[in-house]
């Protein structure tokens, strides 16, 4: 009898359990679906971002150049024949380019307007190229060479299909100019060649001569200063707060303040840098060194917080074991705690650095937004930085800067990808089981 009652009770319970089980499975399935859906949405946006950037930017990696037979006429370059550097450097190389063009299109030779129209098709960079060649090797003087020289950015845009041939739809070339371009195209003298200026030059007013190298070097110097300052400062602060300082009101106040600083908009650090570094310490304007100082302020809270978390994650028995053997606190930290926390600290540091590389607001305040053509040779030279260069180009009216903006973004993303890959590598290298 009692057995039967038990049987009934058991089956009733299992029925209830079963009913709930169905619901539990349904909830779990739904939750999993939400998770996958959110990942898909995030990936979609990322893909749209990347496709639009790469889609706009990839054309900037090539540039239209023209093949011209240049006669390095000794009477134009160096009439006296002395081959002095000063003479060679100030010679009228533009005349060589003009001569080559009028030789190619004799019909324009005697018409002033036609000559002006014809010469506007080629970039000013062409004469700079010729000058560089002669300065490197004066023996070319007197010879005639077939050379590839950069065309004006508008010709490049026309060939890439970014600009209409029709003047009413924004085209800026006359029928005669279009005729010359078509004639060059038909004879195979026009070609899209690798855009070396993009990777070797600083900024320029001429889009076809503008490059990101100045900004890359500026960013690199800033980053160097930032790492050199914020890593030791941040780690030392974290170690002191986590391992040495006693818990009291003061350390609480410091902790709250550090967490607050992590959330302060970076423009505020820029203003602070402007006031302290430029106005009080009189450091040079626009210098990557000062940029690095400002970025140190930005990344320091991130590094301190990440390092403290990494130190906290080291199990307390490691500390007990070391202290129990008679290690001093500093020995305990240096021999045991810090090595175990290192992967986390490095990851945090590189995340902080990645934030610093992408930061533009503080750099605007300390003058790294200036138009600077030269590639900086030291951290004290005026320079700009990658995100600021992107900002500058995005604000430029020329159509050719649109693709260059995207190209600069691609370079910045690659920069970040390299840094994050380094972070993963370092974490793997220092990671230890315990």
């Amino acid at each position: 009898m009692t057995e039967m009652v038990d049987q009934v009770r058991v089956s009733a319970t299992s029925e209830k359990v079963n009913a709930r089980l169905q619901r539990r499975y349904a909830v779990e399935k739904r939750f999993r679906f939400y998770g996958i859906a959110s990942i898909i949405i995030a990936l979609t946006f990322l893909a749209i971002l990347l496709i639009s950037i790469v889609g706009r930017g990839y054309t900037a990696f090539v540039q239209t150049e023209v093949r011209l037979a240049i006669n390095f006429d000794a009477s134009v370059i160096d009439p006296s024949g002395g081959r002095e550097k000063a003479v060679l450097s100030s010679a009228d190389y533009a005349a060589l380019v003009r001569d080559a063009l009028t030789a190619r299109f004799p019909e324009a030779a005697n018409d002033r307007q036609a000559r002006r129209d014809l010469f506007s098709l080629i970039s000013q960079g062409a004469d700079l190229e010729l000058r560089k060649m002669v300065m490197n090797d004066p023996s070319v003087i007197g010879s005639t060479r077939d050379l590839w020289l950069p065309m004006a950015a508008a010709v490049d845009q026309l060939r890439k299909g970014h600009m209409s041939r029709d003047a009413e739809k924004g085209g800026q070339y006359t029928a005669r100019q279009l005729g010359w371009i078509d004639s060059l195209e038909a004879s195979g003298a026009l070609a899209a060649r690798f855009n070396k200026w993009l990777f070797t030059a600083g900024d320029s007013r001429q889009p076809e001569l503008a490059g990101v190298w100045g900004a890359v070097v500026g960013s690199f110097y800033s980053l160097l200063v930032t790492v050199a300052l914020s890593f030791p400062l941040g780690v030392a602060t974290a170690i002191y707060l986590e391992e040495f300082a006693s818990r009291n009101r003061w350390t609480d106040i410091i902790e709250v303040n550090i967490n607050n600083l992590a959330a302060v908009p970076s423009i505020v650090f820029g203003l602070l840098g402007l006031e302290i570094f430029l106005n009080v310490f009189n450091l040079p304007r626009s210098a990557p060194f000062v940029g690095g100082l400002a970025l140190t302020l930005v990344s320091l809270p991130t590094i301190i917080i990440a390092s403290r978390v990494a130190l906290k994650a080291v199990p307390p028995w490691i500390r007990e074991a070391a202290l129990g053997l008679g290690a001093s606190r500093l020995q305990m930290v240096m021999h045991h705690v810090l090595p175990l926390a290192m992967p986390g600290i490095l990851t945090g540091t590189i995340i902080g650095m990645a934030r610093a590389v992408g930061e533009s607001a503080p750099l605007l305040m300390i003058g790294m937004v200036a138009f600077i053509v030269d590639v900086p040779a030291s951290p004290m030279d005026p320079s700009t930085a990658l995100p600021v260069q992107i900002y500058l180009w995005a604000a430029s009216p020329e159509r050719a800067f649109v693709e260059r903006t995207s190209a600069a973004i691609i370079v910045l993303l690659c920069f970040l990808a390299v840094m994050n890959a380094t972070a993963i590598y370092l974490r793997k290298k220092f990671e230890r089981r315990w």
Partner: protein
Amino acid sequence: MSLASESYFQQSGRALTNAAKVTARDVNVYYGDKHALKAVDLNIRANEVTALIGPSGCGKSTFLRCLNRMNDLIDGARVTGLITLDGDDIYDRSLDVVQLRARIGMVFQKPNPFPKSIFDNVAYGPRIHGLAQSSADLEEIVVTSLQRAGLYEEVKDRLVEPGTGLSGGQQQRLCIARAIAVSPEVILMDEPCSALDPIATAKVEELIDELRENFTIVIVTHSMQQAARVSQRTAFFHLGVLVEFGDTEQIFTNPQQKLTQGYITGRFG
């Protein structure tokens, strides 16, 4: 074992008399407002195993951690009273806590080898205290310590492998080897076998009995059988009070206090 290493440990063993090595007089410990240990008086004799027993939260681990000042690490912990090691007040301002912990070693409840090689685990103490003159010296100390901890035969071919790769019992014996490598005078053991299986426990207990020859040992244990097996003297704590302290045989066969009797017969605990 060579003669040289024998004498190395002979020094650390000090005199083989049964005088009080460590004395505690009116020791009180407070954690904030909590009075964790109340007026404890206790003498720990040299070259004996003293077991501290009692139910959870009775203050036995707290007392143990007073002896090498590990309680200093806990925020809000306060110790009053007098604890002496060979007659010197260990809470004296002039006494260096690093030196104290070199003289009073500790083995913890959970085996806690460093995530380093077996060799480096044992060599760490001698290295930071500068006990070895040369690398040959250091190797000698490491090998001898491992031998004394009864671990050498099992690990001699893999001294460079991580100490964390050993089994639980081996890890605990490695921790004991690490503690005795500094040649302390007293070894504190905080429930050293609670995370071990019976076979590993038996090995560690056997080891404790051997170590008694050269070291003074204080062991906290939850197992009354263990206290009975390894110790010469037993202290029974209850609610922060030292209820009874005497020869182990007397405590387990003829306890003077009703509370002690209740605990060892398993009426509470």
